[in-house]
């Protein structure tokens, strides 16, 4: 069995660590020495659980998707993170981190966002706690995820455009890190995925682990056994996947399927399929797989999905894929768009473009009729209606 917990330096095997300049050390160290103690504090637990229940609306349902099951010839269950308040799994993490920030006495919250779901989830918890909120977002993403920009502003957050590089998630993350360097005392940085320097990957995975914690008893109730045969999740940085895998990481009966965005195609030069195109290196303070040139310059990724348009993956996923514990599947823009439409019309659920990649992966897999497959339905597609409308117009009339 592989060792799926971090070691004392924040490594999963050789992936992880904290490759940060000294200017970030104080901030990161403060979190590192406090996070486990705070997370295990019964009072923290109580407040976290209560907010997840009454504010987020957890537990999220595990829904048996009858028509998808018939179509695929397997038992397909959907873990409905799209029904959470703010419409995605991202809020599980921001609730946890805002409670932490509050206990650390922070007054100012910063975040990066790609699809805007993490930005909205951060703006939401800041409103809830009355804290100042600044969200960095790539200029390209501000354009393609306009509804979420409006939501963040409605919630009182300031959205600051990241104008460097590909003007997407990677660049927004760089800007957030720079802000944190410039504000070493009163600011907490709520990272939106299982990326960044230790302790972020582990901390975010713990907050998201509620997804598989619920899956266990929900599956037991519905299928008579508390594990599925496979869990399918999309991977941008990998937080919904980490949460959906968490309690099954060491359960080899469960296949873990990590779905990446292939953009226009893995070999097209316009892709974000990190585990296939990436090599080992350092991005945003973490040793992991990333897309880079031979010289170690980070390559600008591409995906239609802003939340998957990132040139790295969290160190846990690099480790799981390297150890062959998780299987990586990649899905193109077109496959994801087709899957969105298909799921919308089969189940009456419009998934986020990120999540649509996970659905499209079902076409790449094979299974037996009794197999139980859980798809992590990480978010809803309201924010992507512009992309869906354009796609519909390009389709022949039925």
């Amino acid at each position, binding site marked *: 069995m592989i060792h799926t917990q971090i070691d004392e330096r924040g490594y999963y095997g050789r992936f992880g*660590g904290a490759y940060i*300049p000294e*200017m970030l050390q104080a901030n990161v160290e403060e979190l590192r020495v406090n996070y486990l103690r705070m997370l295990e504090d019964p009072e923290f637990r109580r407040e976290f659980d209560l907010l997840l229940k009454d504010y987020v609306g957890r537990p999220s349902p595990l829904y048996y998707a009858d028509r998808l099951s018939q179509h695929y010839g397997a038992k397909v269950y959907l873990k409905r993170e799209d029904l959470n308040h703010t419409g995605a799994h991202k809020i599980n993490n921001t609730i946890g981190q805002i409670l932490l920030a509050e206990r650390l006495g922070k007054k100012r919250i910063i975040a990066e966002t790609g699809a805007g779901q993490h930005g909205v989830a951060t703006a939401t918890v800041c409103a809830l706690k009355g804290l100042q909120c600044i969200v960095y977002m790539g200029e390209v993403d501000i354009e393609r995820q306009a509804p979420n920009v409006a939501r963040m502003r409605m919630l009182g957050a300031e959205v600051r455009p990241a104008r460097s590089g590909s003007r997407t998630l990677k660049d927004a993350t760089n800007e957030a*890190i720079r802000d944190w360097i410039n504000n070493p*005392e009163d600011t907490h940085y709520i990272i939106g995925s299982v990326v960044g320097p230790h302790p972020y990957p582990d901390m975010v995975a713990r907050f998201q682990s509620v997804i598989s914690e619920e899956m266990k008893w929900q599956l037991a109730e519905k299928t008579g056994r508390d594990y599925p045969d496979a869990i399918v999740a999309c991977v941008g940085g990998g937080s919904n996947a980490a949460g959906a895998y968490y309690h099954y990481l060491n359960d080899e009966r469960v296949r873990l399927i990590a779905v990446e965005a292939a953009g226009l195609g893995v070999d097209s030069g316009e892709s974000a399929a990190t585990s296939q195109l990436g090599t*080992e290196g*350092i*991005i945003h303070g973490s040793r992991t797989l990333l897309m*880079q040139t031979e010289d*170690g310059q980070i390559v600008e990724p591409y995906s239609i999905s802003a939340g998957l348009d990132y040139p790295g993956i969290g160190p846990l996923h690099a480790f799981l894929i390297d150890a062959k514990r998780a299987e990586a599947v990649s899905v193109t823009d077109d496959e994801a768009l087709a899957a969105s439409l298909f799921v919308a019309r089969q189940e009456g659920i419009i998934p986020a473009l990120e999540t649509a990649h996970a659905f499209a992966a079902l076409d790449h897999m094979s299974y037996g009729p009794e197999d139980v497959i859980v798809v992590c339905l990480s978010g809803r597609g309201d924010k992507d209606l512009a992309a869906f409308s354009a796609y519909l117009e390009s389709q022949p009339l039925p």
Partner: protein
Amino acid sequence: MNRLTKLFAAKPRDILNVYFTAGFPTLDSTVAVIRNLAEAGADLIEVGMPYSDPMADGETIQQSSMKALQNGMNLKLLFEQLTEARRHTQVPLVLMGYYNQVMQYGPERFVAAAAAAGVDGLILPDLPAYEYERDFREIAEAADLQVSFLITPQTPDERIRQIAESSTGFLYVVSSSSITGGSSEISDRQRAYFDRIAALDLPNPKLIGFGISDAATFRTACEYFNGAIIGSAFIRALGGQEDRVGEATQAFVKRILEPSYS
């Protein structure tokens, strides 16, 4: 003897270290910048290896890095240029960059190439102390490359002592809690921080960097330690000077060292 050791022995005060991004403003300006900096009186030169995602750097260095990469700069070419520069000057050279570049080049191969090109020291701000001791210190020492680490106003005394022990070169005293590129007067709070470091009585030479942008801030910094590092202000001075890199470089150094010069 390592040129840095020699420099600090010969000149304990008022050391001017100027940073520039290799390949900026043009791909082949590296040698001219180094030669003119040295001629005009810079004591030490920090050569930035341009990186796509320089997380500790502000807009100025970020943009110069982007330009340098667009110009076609890469490590192989940089080592060739440094070898050429070494034919003309014995000024100490320190390479500054992010660890991913070193990792991809291969730490052993990188150190060997840097030493062969006449480099004297390295600054790798995102290489953590533990990984440095485990993967890097021995090979750098064997090649007589001195490695400098950063300390900031947030670094506790105990940690400063550990960092000073790891540093085989000068200590890089980051003047304030910020990314590179700021410029303002040196505040009372900063003075208190410098005094705190001075009181630790560490054996390493110390240079102050970040926010040193003109003759006045350079002078003040020199009152505290062995000298100071100027980066973004020089990059700004090189901007748009593609055709007169030499003159712009000399004029910049003169403005720092001879405040009456304009």
